[in-house]
């Protein structure tokens, strides 16, 4: 059950957000604790680079490969090559559309569920009052944006008092989140018609909070704010009463991955095919200051 | 009177640029088997007429007829299919491609759909041989001198011309031998029944080769007639609309006292470019530079000006050692330089005539003491008048001016800096008789005002007319310095040709 001295390749998507940086640093930490020689390859957001990285790892003969796939499709061939070379592959934070025997396991959250948890919180919070929601989507076409939108819509389906009146992409970034929210506020009667904002990630929510304040409204009261990821900055906002809820996406996917890998390499124990991480909801009742302190060192 | 059927004809052509009428109801007819000279001052509209005849421009009125049938030429390619081959005024070839490809572009011999390069190069070698050029057809055209490029352009046009050959100032950068060879070829083509249009500012050449002549003035047709019954004076009078007197081409009187020494180049040279040379230049004298094409005259001029830095030898200015490593050094010492390749190194095509005139002065003044618009206007206006620059407005882009007028602008640019020493590289190339005389007059005037000048020119008569001394270049080496009665074409030619004669400096 000892992984020390093993060489593991890790193909990361890139560093497009604070959450991604945290995942990378947590993975490195976990590898270090276990004495693993981690080969890290950053794909700069490109699937082709990830495939190249995996091929490179195979050519070097690593002991195992971790991949955080940028997109669900397109992995069959390269995973088959890894299988040919008898190198176990573990998927991190997203699944892929490939035969299940091509990888050891997938450690991921359920993104649709994340959206659902956020939606459910809103349903529970507004009760039977009318609520017009504006949505800040992630990058058009990206998997989390599609899934988180779907989950949220599922949760509010059947609650006719809640409706999404505007939905635009904020590209997962703070500044676009702020800009889009400004536009929404202008378009919806100075923000008076907006009851809540749902952001596909916390960064956009933080931007939206600033836009709401600039418009002379109180985020968290005049307009409810719910988002996903649970990065440190959103806890500061929750503590200040400016954000209401966030759904956690843990950056520690590597920990469970290394655990099952150790078992597999030791005696061939096959793990569960899908290891789903928890999608925990945090609100002002969950000690936001404490959560902030716990997270801020993680490299978000 | 019987209607002649012309090989190529223009009827009632009108061309308007903005609000400037470049061609006003011009008729022009070309007979098969004649050499037809098209003459006129700079800006008279010669090149414009050519461009319309070959489809490069669309006329605003009038028609073009080939063999009596009206044709509509949308682009030069269509003209080529009518058997019209053209050399446009500025060398218009592709410096980035091989000589062979420039000759055959669009008509390359192919085999199985692929260009047959070997055949193309063999053919090219054969064609070039007729012009006395022994160069590698696969070499890049841009690596060759302007003259070589000019010959390639002519050869290309001749190859394309089944019926009509149009040459717009083809001889501007050719030497005598090359001109002779070109004329042989033209006579040949005429004998084969081609119609040849020939534009030039050298009247000798007109009389040497042309059968008929058409004269334009200010965009209007003056006259078309046979050359037999005309004299040079007639032609010039028709071109200018007035008489001018030729100043006899005699050497500068020896009696003139030499001014004090301004510049002293000692063992000045640059490796792989120009052999070290010695030259002392006095105030108030003109040094003419003669030599064959490619003999290194331009390179010597560039070194003097610091455009290429000298890597050996010393320079004294007014008795003080000085170093000139870049043009700004030279300019601050009162140097000026009119480069040979006007288009590539002289003009700023999109800038106005005004800005083109003041730019060197402004460069001398620096970034922060800008001339304001009124001052610019005043300076540009003064030189525009003095040099008789023909432009609809000083605010129009210089690229719209005719070649001769562009040259006057560049000369004005340097005169505006109030220079002590001017280097002129082929200042009269492509310039009409009137302007030519004017530039020669200007050179004389500047000398009398105490300037020192170095003038490079391929026209020996001209060099002789204004030079106090003449240096001769051969194979990138200064081989002779002539003065006094040695300043005559015969001696110069001998110096250029004679391999034995050592430098007499």
């Amino acid at each position, binding site marked *: 059950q000892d992984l020390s001295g093993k060489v593991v390749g890790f193909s990361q998507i890139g560093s497009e957000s604070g959450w991604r940086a945290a995942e990378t640093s947590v993975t490195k930490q976990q590898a270090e604790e276990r004495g693993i020689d981690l080969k890290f390859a950053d794909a700069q957001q490109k699937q082709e680079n990830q495939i190249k990285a995996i091929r490179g790892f195979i050519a070097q003969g690593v002991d195992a490969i971790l991949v955080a796939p940028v997109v669900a499709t397109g992995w069959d061939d390269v995973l088959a090559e890894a299988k040919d070379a008898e190198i176990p592959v573990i998927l991190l934070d997203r699944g892929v559309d490939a035969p299940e025997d091509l990888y050891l396991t997938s450690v991921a959250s359920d993104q649709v569920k994340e959206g659902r948890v956020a939606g459910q919180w809103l349903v529970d919070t507004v009760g039977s009052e009318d609520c017009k929601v504006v949505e800040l989507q992630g990058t058009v076409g990206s998997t989390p944006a599609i899934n988180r939108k779907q989950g949220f819509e599922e949760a509010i389906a059947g609650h006719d008092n809640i409706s999404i009146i505007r*939905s635009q992409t904020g590209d997962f970034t703070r500044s676009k989140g702020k800009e889009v929210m400004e536009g929404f506020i202008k378009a919806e009667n100075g923000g008076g018609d907006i009851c809540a904002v749902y952001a596909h990630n916390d960064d956009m929510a933080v931007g939206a909070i600033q836009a709401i304040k600039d418009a002379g409204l109180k985020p968290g009261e005049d307009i409810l704010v719910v988002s996903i990821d649970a990065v440190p900055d959103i806890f500061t906002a929750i503590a200040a009463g400016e954000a209401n809820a966030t759904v956690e996406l843990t950056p520690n996917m590597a920990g469970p991955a290394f655990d099952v890998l150790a078992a597999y390499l030791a005696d061939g124990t096959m793990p569960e095919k899908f290891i789903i991480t928890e999608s925990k909801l945090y609100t002002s009742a969950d000690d936001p200051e404490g959560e902030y302190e716990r997270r801020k060192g993680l490299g978000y | 009177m019987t209607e002649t059927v012309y090989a190529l004809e223009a009827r009632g052509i009108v061309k308007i640029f903005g609000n400037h009428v470049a061609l006003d109801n011009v008729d022009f007819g070309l007979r098969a088997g004649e050499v037809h000279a098209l003459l006129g001052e700079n800006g008279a509209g010669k090149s414009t007429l050519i461009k319309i005849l070959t489809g490069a421009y669309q006329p605003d009125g009038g028609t073009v007829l080939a063999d009596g049938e009206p044709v509509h030429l949308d682009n030069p390619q269509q003209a080529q299919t009518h058997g019209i081959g053209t050399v446009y005024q500025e060398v218009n070839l592709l410096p980035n491609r091989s000589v062979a490809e420039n000759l055959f572009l669009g008509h390359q011999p192919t085999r199985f759909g692929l260009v047959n390069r070997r055949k193309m190069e063999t053919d090219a070698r054969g064609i070039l041989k007729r012009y006395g050029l022994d160069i590698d057809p696969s070499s890049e055209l841009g690596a060759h001198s302007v003259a070589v490029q000019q010959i390639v352009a002519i050869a290309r046009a001749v190859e394309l011309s089944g019926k009509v050959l149009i040459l717009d100032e083809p001889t501007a950068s050719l030497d005598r031998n090359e001109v002779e060879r070109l004329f042989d070829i033209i006579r040949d083509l005429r004998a084969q029944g081609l119609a040849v249009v020939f534009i030039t500012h050298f009247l000798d050449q007109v009389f040497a080769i042309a059968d008929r002549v058409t004269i334009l003035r200010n965009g209007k047709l003056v006259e078309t007639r046979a050359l037999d019954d005309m004299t040079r004076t007639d032609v010039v009078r028709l071109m200018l609309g007035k008489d001018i007197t030729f100043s006899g081409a005699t050497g500068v009187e020896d009696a003139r006292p030499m001014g004090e020494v301004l510049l002293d180049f000692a063992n000045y040279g640059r490796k792989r470019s120009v052999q070290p040379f010695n030259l002392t230049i006095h105030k108030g004298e003109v040094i003419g530079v003669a030599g064959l094409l490619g003999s290194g005259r331009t390179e010597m001029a560039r070194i003097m000006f610091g455009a290429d830095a000298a890597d050996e030898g010393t320079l004294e200015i007014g008795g003080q050692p000085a170093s000139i490593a870049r043009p700004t050094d030279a300019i601050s010492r009162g140097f000026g330089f009119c480069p040979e390749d006007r288009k590539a190194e002289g003009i700023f095509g999109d800038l106005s005539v005004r800005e083109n005139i003041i730019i*060197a002065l402004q460069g001398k003044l620096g970034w922060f003491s800008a001339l304001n618009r009124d001052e610019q206007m005043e300076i540009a206006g003064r030189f525009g008048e003095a040099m008789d620059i023909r432009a609809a407005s000083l605010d129009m882009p210089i690229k719209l001016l005719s070649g001769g007028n562009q040259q006057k602008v560049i000369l004005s640019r340097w005169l505006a800096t109030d220079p002590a020493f001017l280097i002129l590289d082929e200042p009269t190339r492509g310039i009409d008789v009137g302007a030519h005389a004017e530039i020669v007059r200007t050179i004389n005037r500047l000398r009398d005002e105490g300037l020192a000048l170095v003038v490079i020119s391929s026209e020996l008569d001209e060099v002789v007319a204004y030079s106090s001394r003449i240096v001769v270049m051969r194979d990138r080496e200064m081989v002779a310095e002539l003065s006094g009665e040695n300043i005559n074409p015969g001696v110069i030619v001998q110096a250029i040709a004679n391999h034995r004669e050592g430098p007499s400096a």
Partner: protein
Amino acid sequence: MRRILLRLANPQLIALVGVLLVNWLLFPNFFRVTWQDGRLFGSLIDVINRGAPVAILAIGMVGVIATKGVDLSVGAVMAMAGAVAATMVVAGYPAPVAVAAALAVGLACGLWNGFLVAVLDIQPIVATLVLMVAGRGIAQLITEGFIVTFTDPLLIFIGTGSFLGFPMAAVIAMALLLLVTLLVRRTAIGLFIEAVGINRAAASLAGIRSRMLLLLVYGLSGLCAAVAGIIVAGDIRGADANNAGLWLELDAILAVVIGGTSLLGGRFSVPLAVVGAIIIQAMNTGILVSGFPPEFNLIVKAALIFFVLVIQSPLASRIVPARVLNREACA
């Protein structure tokens, strides 16, 4: 007066008016501006506020493009400048020092580009590609991939404050526009930039120090990028090295070209480049308030660019009298 009117009737302004009218049709309150909390408030204000960073980039970029160059690194330089300013204030340096350091970094980056182009004679697109790639990496190195959040009032004021009711970003852009316009038109620098862009060989023979000039324009571009970077960081109260200025170089180039400056160098106009930036932002804001689904954003943008280009093309000038479309560079 007539001249001024004719100048106003240039294609850029026609395009701007067109885009604003379309916005107004899509969203009738587009032109409503109110006074709120001591500042102006409304979509029109958003346009100039959000357009400011690209306008500032364009102010720097226009000189570069006029010399026949292009600066792809401005987005990365923005990220670097923001990262420097943010980490410094977080580390306890006074804000003016942090701002000065960020500006110095921008200037240094610009001079580096200028050095590659002017001295090593490397093609601008490749020369600046180096910093475009590496610069963002350096920015991330500074922030270690975090979004560095700060609470420094001066930085936040630069990003979100207001002056006489106008957003600070727009005021800064305006000031830079004035400054740079004066710099290039009241001195000979503008003329020299054009000369170098049109014919560098001739410029050097005419005694223009083209190397110094190139260093100057690239330096200015870097400096402007740094200003934009500080504004963007101040706006979100944090330096987002991953995303700040991402792809903004394309917007800046687009703004300059819409402003009538040719990518082949030569004649340029700083104010029209700013108008170009405002046109782009007006499109973006229009898309936001119109409520189209986001997957259509890019298509709408493509269509609008096409519309603007057709208005400006020589074809249009054949239909509209040439006098009206006179493109003589102003200012």
